[in-house]
């Protein structure tokens, strides 16, 4: 008996590292994602599927832009705003980019404070994130209004050039704006739950990290849209 206990304590094999840990996790005949909250694993898998949705949109945009024989409107000029009588190219989109990055930063810090069980700071940072998100959506609404009312861009055509521009623009930015709007609602709900102390009993603040994953993904998609649609 003593012999077995002593071997038990000394023979604890160190967990495998590198590719061996990958093989061990997948072949262990138990849960695959060890020490990962199930909600987090599921959120990652949802985000993987969302990656494919957005990739399909961006790939179809690439196909349309590369196959049209009509000149593509120059996004740098279409999305220019004149501030002080001088047109600045793409300035609204740049501001929206910085707003979304800032919201990602506050969200990352909210996750950090949630794990330190600092409920006040977590709530405030999450509300700041939601506020940044809401201002992003309203700037997008301004941009859409300008394009529809002033420029006359429609999903089936536009006076600026290739008709595919309108369909791509409304589909891609619309779907992304929908994600941001849902994220604002999602973050507000989690923030109010944190503020009310809903997670105090279990002391498990992984929900904040899961909400953060969704929010960072929204920012991640914008990185690709900004580069491929607006800057290209």
């Amino acid at each position: 008996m003593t012999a077995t206990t002593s071997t038990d304590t000394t023979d604890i094999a160190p967990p495998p590292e590198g590719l061996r840990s990958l093989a061990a996790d997948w072949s262990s005949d138990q849960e695959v994602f060890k020490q990962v909250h199930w909600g987090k694993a599921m959120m990652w898998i949802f985000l993987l599927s969302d990656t494919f949705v957005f990739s399909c949109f961006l790939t179809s945009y690439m196909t349309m832009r590369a196959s049209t024989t009509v000149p593509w409107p120059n996004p740098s000029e279409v999305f220019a705003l004149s501030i002080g009588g001088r047109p600045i190219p793409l300035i609204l989109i740049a501001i929206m980019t910085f707003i979304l990055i800032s919201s990602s930063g506050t969200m990352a810090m909210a996750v950090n404070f949630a794990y330190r069980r600092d409920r006040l700071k977590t709530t405030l940072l999450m509300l700041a994130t939601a506020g940044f998100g809401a201002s992003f959506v309203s700037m997008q609404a301004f941009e859409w209004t300008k394009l529809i009312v002033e420029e006359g861009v429609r999903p089936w055509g536009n006076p600026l050039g290739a008709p595919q521009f309108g369909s791509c623009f409304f589909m891609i930015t619309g779907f992304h704006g929908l994600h941001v709007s849902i994220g604002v609602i999602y973050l507000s709900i989690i923030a109010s739950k944190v503020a009310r102390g809903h997670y105090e009993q279990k002391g498990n603040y992984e929900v904040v990290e899961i909400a953060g994953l969704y929010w960072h993904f929204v920012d991640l998609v914008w990185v690709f849209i900004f580069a491929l649609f607006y800057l290209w």
Partner: protein
Amino acid sequence: MTVERDNVAQRVTRQAAAPQPAPLHEEASARRSKTAHAHGQQHPIGVYLKVWGYLFVLSTMSYLVDYFHVEGVLRPLLIVTFMFLKAGLIVAIFMHMAWERLALIYAILVPPLCLGTLILLMAIESDYTFWTRTIFFGSGP
């Protein structure tokens, strides 16, 4: 930043690899899960602030590509470089992928690689469509 990240990663793996003097298996596993909960993705705030700064710099640089009308091969090269640097920072640090186990990293990051096939096929297809339109509708260059 890389140095700090390595330190944190090492600390996390060291914690996980530390031999547990466990008289009973249940107790050991209970303690392990408790520490995993308490320490779950706990990193110094400075890491996030640094990444935040890097993202601002990279965004500014990609905006300046457009502002200064960089043309030719350099333009897509710079845009794609900044895009992937930003995406990598967000996924690795903000989404904590750098500290996750390999089983999760591979499950999430490998499937999107097959999108390369879709992009390649659609690039070939769009080229074909473009020349078909140019030749048969005569509205090309």
